[in-house]
């Protein structure tokens, strides 16, 4: 059963020309974790605030646990919605202790129950600090845990998190990400988190929604998003990918880097003209001159620790032309290749073949 359902939600801020959120619909099953991903200004935080009741949409309805909470001009006030929220800057109450912060949202419990619930929740988040301390006495990671505990203590039906990891340093971030997922899963809570970091999304979420300019581009499992992106924007967001313009030729595709032989199931017939070949930087193998291959010239090498990234271009030099047996096209293009650390230098000739690629019609975006 869907715990939260958004129907055609749109929001336009006053004095803004465009919609911050534009006709977004989706639903989420109980216990799922959804990551809203997008660049800044894509409307993901606005969407979160709409769900929390901190903003009101221009149109659309929101249903929480089978009850319509937003429809037309009517809205359930924020404090009556059972949603917990973790803010980017944590927004801990600076004048209250950790205990008082976590206990703030608890209602209808007596003193003993309150204490029990607070300690239970704090323990769950793995915070090992004196609960009589004040927020300013804690480190960033600890504050994050308090913020999470505070949101979780009333046992909300839905947990909303706005860039929860962006204020943590890289090392802490990896650790906290994993823990947060475990905590949410252990409590069986449904959660929506907003992030601009795809790593956050991949490592915490069951489903990922990609937003661009207020629109929901794609909502899918991480696996599907990575392997079957619906647009080049989505593909680009989740890792370095290459989009090579090619012409359909008998038995395959002519590209600036050489000839790529098509697979048997390729739906493109010989007379369809130009297409895009889409492949990720890591979906290539280097090979020697004997095999059928593509080639190009290294333009730039970037050392990235565990691997190298090569920017390879095809500048139609004689070397390449001979190597690739004259199958070159007029256009100049560059692609990115991922390689284990080797001694590449600009000017080298690279021979490679595609392990995997997708054929797409030239997309309009």
């Amino acid at each position: 059963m869907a715990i939260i359902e958004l129907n055609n939600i749109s929001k336009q801020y006053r004095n803004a020309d465009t919609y911050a959120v534009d006709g977004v619909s989706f639903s989420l099953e109980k216990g799922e974790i959804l990551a809203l991903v997008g660049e800044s200004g894509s409307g993901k935080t606005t969407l979160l605030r709409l769900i929390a009741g901190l903003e009101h949409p221009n149109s659309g309805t929101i249903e929480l646990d089978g009850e319509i909470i937003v429809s037309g001009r009517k809205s359930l006030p924020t404090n009556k919605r059972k949603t917990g929220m973790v803010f980017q800057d944590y927004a801990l109450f600076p004048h209250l202790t950790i205990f008082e912060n976590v206990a703030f949202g608890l209602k209808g419990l007596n003193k003993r129950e309150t204490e029990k619930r607070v300690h239970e929740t704090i323990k769950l988040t793995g915070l090992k600090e004196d609960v009589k301390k004040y927020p300013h006495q804690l480190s960033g990671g600890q504050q994050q845990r308090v913020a999470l505990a505070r949101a979780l203590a009333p046992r909300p039906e839905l947990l909303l998190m706005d860039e929860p990891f962006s204020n943590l340093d890289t090392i802490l971030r990896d650790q906290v990400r994993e823990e947060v997922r475990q905590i949410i899963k252990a409590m069986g809570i449904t959660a929506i988190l907003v992030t601009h970091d795809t790593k956050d999304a991949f490592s915490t979420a069951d489903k990922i929604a990609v937003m661009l300019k207020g629109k929901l581009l794609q909502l899918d499992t991480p696996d599907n998003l990575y392997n079957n992106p619906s647009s080049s924007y989505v593909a680009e967001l989740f890792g370095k990918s290459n989009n090579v313009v090619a012409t359909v030729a008998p038995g395959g595709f002519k590209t600036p880097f050489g000839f790529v032989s098509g697979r048997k199931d390729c739906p493109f017939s010989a007379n369809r003209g130009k297409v895009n070949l889409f492949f990720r930087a890591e979906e290539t193998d280097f090979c020697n001159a004997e095999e059928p291959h593509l080639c190009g010239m290294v333009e730039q090498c970037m050392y990235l620790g565990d691997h190298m990234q090569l920017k390879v271009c095809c500048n139609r030099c004689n070397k390449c032309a001979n190597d690739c047996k004259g199958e070159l096209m007029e256009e100049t293009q560059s692609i990115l290749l991922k390689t284990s650390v080797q001694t590449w230098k600009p000017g080298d000739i690279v021979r490679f073949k595609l392990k995997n690629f997708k054929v797409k019609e030239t997309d309009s975006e």
Partner: protein
Amino acid sequence: MAKKTTYWWNKWTGGAIVILLLVLTPVFTILVKLFDKPGEHWRHIASNLLPSYFANSFLLLLGVGFFTFLIGVSMAWLVSVYDFPGRKYFEWLLILPLAFPSYMMAYSYVGILEYTGPVQAFFRNNFDIHFKGAIVDIMNMPGAIFILSISLFPYVYVICRASFTRQSSAMQEAAFLLGSNRMRMFTKIALPMARPAVAGGIALVGMEVLNDYGTVKYFGVDTFTSGIFRAWFSFGDINTAIYLSAILTVIVLALIWLENFQRGSRNWNAGSGGSRPALRIRPKYKSTRRLYTALCLTVLLISFIFPLMQLFYWVSLTWQNVVDSEFGILIFRSFSLAIGSAVAIAVISIFLLYAIRLSPLKWTKHIARTASLGYAIPGAVIAVGVMIPMMGLDRTINWAVSDNMGMILSGTLFILVVAYIVRFMAVGYNAIDAGFQKTGATVNEVARSLGASPLRTLWKIDLPLIKNSIAGAVLLAFVDILKELPLTLILRPFNFHTLATKAFDMATNEMIAESANASLVVVLTGVIPIIVLNNMISRKK
């Protein structure tokens, strides 16, 4: 199932709308009356007095605007760019004239310069030089410009100093690298960047000038405000007073519009907010440093120390006759009235600002700002604007209970408190708004998302976090109300005095030395918030 409500409506919004309407009633009343028939004395005033009201008010605005600009900007530039002996103290000492109401300053200077005053006595006793009458007659237009300028320049100084110190060192360095000297840097970079701030400060000065009654009355300079008083008290012609108020209101609104217009969307300082502040320069020559110290000291002496010493001198002569139990009651009444009104202002400001905070409609912020409009409108005008609806209400009440209860609203302290709230709302509003801005909206949002009602959130989260701002708001409003003269003169109940009206009353009745006792209490009380706020700011640094 919990109840859904219309998204923008809650009790807070409703309350805020009611408060806003009440606060704006005086202004509306006045503006509506502009289309009414003027009173019986209007023709006489319009043909004989109005031209001089216009000319005098305009001349006063121009003169005071020019001199406050000159003193304010130069002092601000000195203390924010150069380092010289005493700079640290002059920084806040130069704000002190704000504690000195201009009419009290006027009495002091008349005393300083008169025959029995210290200056003449000094020349007479040491050099046997005799003057006829006052050394310089300041009871005229130039005198009024002088008094108002030295008591109001801190408005320009404070705003301008803030602007200068916010300008980043990177920008100054860039200007120097491009070959500018300090003078060119000032005229081409610093001053143009501070222009919106300077204009804002001068606009404030302008509003204070139009508000002033005590000084111009004492010096016999007829302005719009004195015109309103004349129509009201001498001619007993309320309608003419209203008509003059309406014209003055239109002038003030034009002034506000002009200030907003010149500012446009400029916000030149914001961009460099985070960068390190400009380094102060220590002038190479000792004589230059001494000159700067002397300049600041001269301004401070003229604008604060000399008139204060005169007050002390007068008090030493007369306190035995003046300070008695009645004087104690006067202080007590004056203080309680001011504190009560200041607290009311704080409570109303919190209510309005919290309603905005809860509202999902962003533009409510701009509407609520109009609540602070009263600060721009001269006290005499507000008095008239509050008086009319109150008298109407009194009549309605008397008719409703069919009993002559008299002026139960317009003849009591109630009307005075209402008028103070309308006039000084901005003081509390801005201070508390700053507090809310500093805490940010997220703590409030997170508390509500945790299920706390808006009221509980306000009580448990917002109020504890802004308690310093609330204290500041009450303090500032308190001091402003204590100094208030024109509005109080018009609306005070029969035979009721505040320190301000008592000082005015005595001074205009040839008891200028005696009036110093009340003045001194007001000035010394006014100094407190300046010291407190300065400490708060320097602690933050």
